[in-house]
């Protein structure tokens, strides 16, 4: 048997809404963005670490509220950060380019800003970057801590001297050339351009003849119509040029030397720099979790050692976002699960599947170190989690819904182990009711004997008859005012009908006696949704 080390497969992470929440994390730094992709769940035995992680989120929530302004500045600094870890790695054997050193200096300045801010905000120690001012002093010899960079003269006395010398020579050349330019104008009435050249049309033979006579001008280039002449450097200028070329080469060499030295210095700080990137990334993630939790009313789950999963007034975040966008109000659900089989039964459109997903969401968010969308939650860690639910992707793969269900059931049987959380949505509903029921019952019989928390939604009521099975029922339309509902629905269009039914639906779960019948709301709802009265009446006759 293949040993699967992961907690949950990709589909489970998607269907429970973990991916949705992770995607909504507003991460600002490249380090945080990289780290979140590598995030791993906490497994049984790691309760203490998880509690610490969660306590950091709580801490960041408090800090964010107490230091609103500083948090804003911190996020701004985060936003400007770039991932320069490659440059840091490269500094071992290469002379970094000026652009690379500039970018690294920018990062160092930001790190220092984050260090000061986080110290001031009393962020947990493990998130505060180490002081890198020693390296900053090297890259910023002037000490003005401006976010600019150049191989400044102050990096090397030799460089400063060479540059000054070059400037002096440039001035000398220009002086000489200007002198010549004036001489030529006075003598020959010819004005050279600021670049000390002149273009003459070939047809202008008189000018060409004249210029050819001037020894200080030489043909620079020509095309079929015109000739360009330029000032010939005389001996004095030639000598200066030669000297300048030498100095320019020396300058380049010295600049390279400075870059090599700086690169070596940077490499010495490699460990602390990479560690700082890591800390900032972790801070970014923790702060993003805190801000998200605050915005979405999530709470710290209590992490316990026994294998239980309990929450009060839980809300599926993805569904809630949709309802909120439509201006509706989410009806929270509570449930308490422990090892054994629990069934969710009840009316169609009663939110059974959402409750199933919500249970998965709370469990998986907690294990990945997030706050959970509920009023309170108690979570015991699982070794394995899987949701078995129909999705469009299996249809795209060409499998029938029953076929893909069985495929996934096999995966569950192969991979589940002690402390598993299994969420199963209306298994075997896509086949004939006789075999479907039999299969469901035998699966339940198997699950009962395992140390799993199994939550199953089903319409087969005999499944719940067994005394060992906990039956949670959706309240549904049981307490709804049908007169009012019917009146409202009569004049509604198709889309409004669904919304009206949702409004009257009570999604809450309550534990019921195993022998209690599942309410038969299907025909009722079909009628409300506008199915022909004849068909509904005939169906009712069949039930009799």
């Amino acid at each position: 048997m293949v040993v699967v080390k992961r907690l949950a497969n990709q589909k489970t992470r998607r269907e429970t809404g973990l991916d949705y929440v992770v995607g909504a994390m507003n991460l600002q730094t490249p380090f945080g963005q990289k780290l979140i992709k590598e995030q791993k769940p906490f497994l049984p035995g790691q309760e203490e670490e998880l509690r610490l992680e969660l306590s950091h989120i709580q801490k960041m929530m408090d800090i964010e509220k107490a230091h609103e302004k500083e948090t804003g500045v911190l996020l701004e600094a985060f936003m400007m950060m770039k991932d320069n870890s490659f440059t840091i790695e490269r500094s071992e054997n290469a002379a970094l380019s000026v652009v690379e050193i500039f970018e690294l200096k920018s990062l160092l300045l930001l790190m220092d800003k984050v260090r000061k801010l986080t110290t001031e905000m009393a962020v947990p120690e493990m998130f505060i970057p180490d002081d890198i001012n020693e390296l900053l002093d090297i890259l910023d010899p002037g000490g003005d801590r401006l976010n600019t960079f150049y191989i400044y003269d102050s990096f090397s006395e030799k460089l400063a001297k060479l540059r000054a010398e070059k400037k002096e020579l440039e001035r000398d050349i220009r002086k000489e050339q200007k002198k010549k330019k004036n001489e030529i104008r006075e003598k020959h009435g010819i004005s050279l351009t600021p670049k000390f050249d002149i273009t003459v049309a070939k047809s202008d033979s008189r000018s060409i003849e004249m210029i050819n006579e001037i020894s200080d001008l030489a043909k620079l280039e020509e095309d079929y119509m015109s000739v360009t002449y330029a000032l010939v450097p005389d001996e004095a200028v030639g000598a200066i040029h030669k000297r300048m070329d030498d100095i320019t080469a020396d300058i380049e060499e010295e600049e390279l030397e400075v870059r090599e030295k700086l690169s070596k210095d940077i490499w010495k700080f490699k460990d602390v720099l990479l560690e700082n990137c890591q800390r900032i990334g972790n801070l970014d993630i923790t702060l993003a979790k805190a801000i998200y939790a605050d915005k979405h009313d999530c709470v710290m789950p209590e992490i316990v050692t026994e294998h239980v999963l309990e929450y009060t007034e839980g809300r599926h975040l993805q569904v809630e976002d949709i309802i909120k966008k439509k201006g509706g109000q989410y009806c929270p659900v509570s449930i308490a699960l422990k090892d054994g089989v629990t069934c969710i039964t009840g009316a169609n459109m009663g939110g059974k599947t959402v409750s199933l997903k919500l249970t998965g969401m709370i469990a998986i968010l907690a294990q990945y170190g997030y706050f959970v969308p509920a009023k309170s939650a108690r979570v015991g860690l699982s070794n394995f989690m899987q949701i078995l639910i129909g999705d469009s992707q299996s249809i795209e793969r060409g499998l029938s819904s029953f076929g893909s269900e069985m495929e996934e059931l096999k995966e569950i049987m192969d991979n589940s182990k002690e402390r598993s959380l299994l969420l199963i949505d209306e298994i075997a509903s896509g086949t004939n009711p006789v075999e479907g029921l039999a299969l469901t019952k035998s699966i339940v019989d198997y699950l009962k004997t395992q140390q799993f928390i199994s939550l199953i939604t089903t319409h087969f009521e005999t499944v719940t008859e067994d005394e060992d099975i906990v039956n949670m029922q959706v309240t549904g339309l049981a307490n709804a005012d049908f007169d009012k509902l019917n009146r409202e629905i009569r004049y509604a269009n198709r889309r409004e009908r669904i919304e009206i039914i949702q409004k009257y639906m009570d999604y809450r779960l309550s534990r019921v006696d195993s022998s209690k019948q599942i309410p038969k709301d299907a025909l009722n709802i079909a009628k409300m949704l506008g199915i022909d009265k004849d068909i509904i009446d005939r169906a009712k006759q069949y039930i009799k």
Partner: protein
Amino acid sequence: MYLLEELSQKYKRISIVGMAKNAGKTTALNYLIEEAMDEGLTLGITSTGRDGEGTDVVTGTDKPRVFLDTDTIVSVPTQLYDMADAGLEILRMTEYGSSLGQIMICRVADAGYVQVAGPVINANQMEMCEEMLALGADLVLIDGAIDRKSIAAPESSDAIILSTGAVLSRKMNKVVEETVHTVNLYRLPILDDGEARKEIEGLAENDQIIVIRDGKAVLLDITTGLGAGKLLDNEIDDKTTHVFVPGAFTQSVVADINPKKLKNVTFVLKDPTKIFIGATQWGKLCKRGLCIKVLENIQVAAITVNPTAPAGYKFDHEELVNAMQEAIPDVPVIDVMLA
């Protein structure tokens, strides 16, 4: 005369626009840079594309690199940084990308030649100019890689310097005539703030022809193009006061409009770069009473002339400058070859 200082009082961002390829745009830029050195003005230099390469990519003609003095603020993409002969202090890494890496704003620490490139998108260009001004530039000069009149579109700068020269024609009067025509178009009157302007601005985004009758705007279901003129003629009646044309304004738009009607309406365009009508035709149309106004016009800050053409012929320097100045008396004309 301190040309640049005077200009910097009036404008903060000036585009250098060529009338044609090889009209001497880069020569003009170099001239202005030297002028700034002499006047002690700190320039910001950027371009709408890669500029300053050794050879013009399009035409293969010689194109000098830009020599920049100490303290000039310049935009350089990362990949060209190491190729610069000047010493460049990096001040900012912008978010604007280019095919040659991200654009950086640098300060020239050691004078020398630089290959300049700037953001491609107009809005980014605007933001970067603002930043250059904040970093201490007195005036930002914007150069385009290819001489294109359309980059003179008003949103990219406060004013333009128009580079013109012998390349336009072997006849000097033709060079002057075409330049005057372009300047006249750029300076077309702006449609006054009022009901008509309000109506047009509200609907201009639809990219459709709008006629204003009796103070009310009507969107027409015709786009500019061949044959639109006849349809337009039908739509213009006694009560029509304005016609807004969103796209190119060509001869064919007005060709089929009844001359009597033409006199009585005002054509409105987004800006002067939408007009594609030659000087001669333009003169005839104006005589027939064509009246055009624009939502935004273009300030011409100065005109530079280049008396030599790459084809070899040249005009007399003074003659050209004088002829141009006489034709456009209120805009300074500079001969860039004559320092």
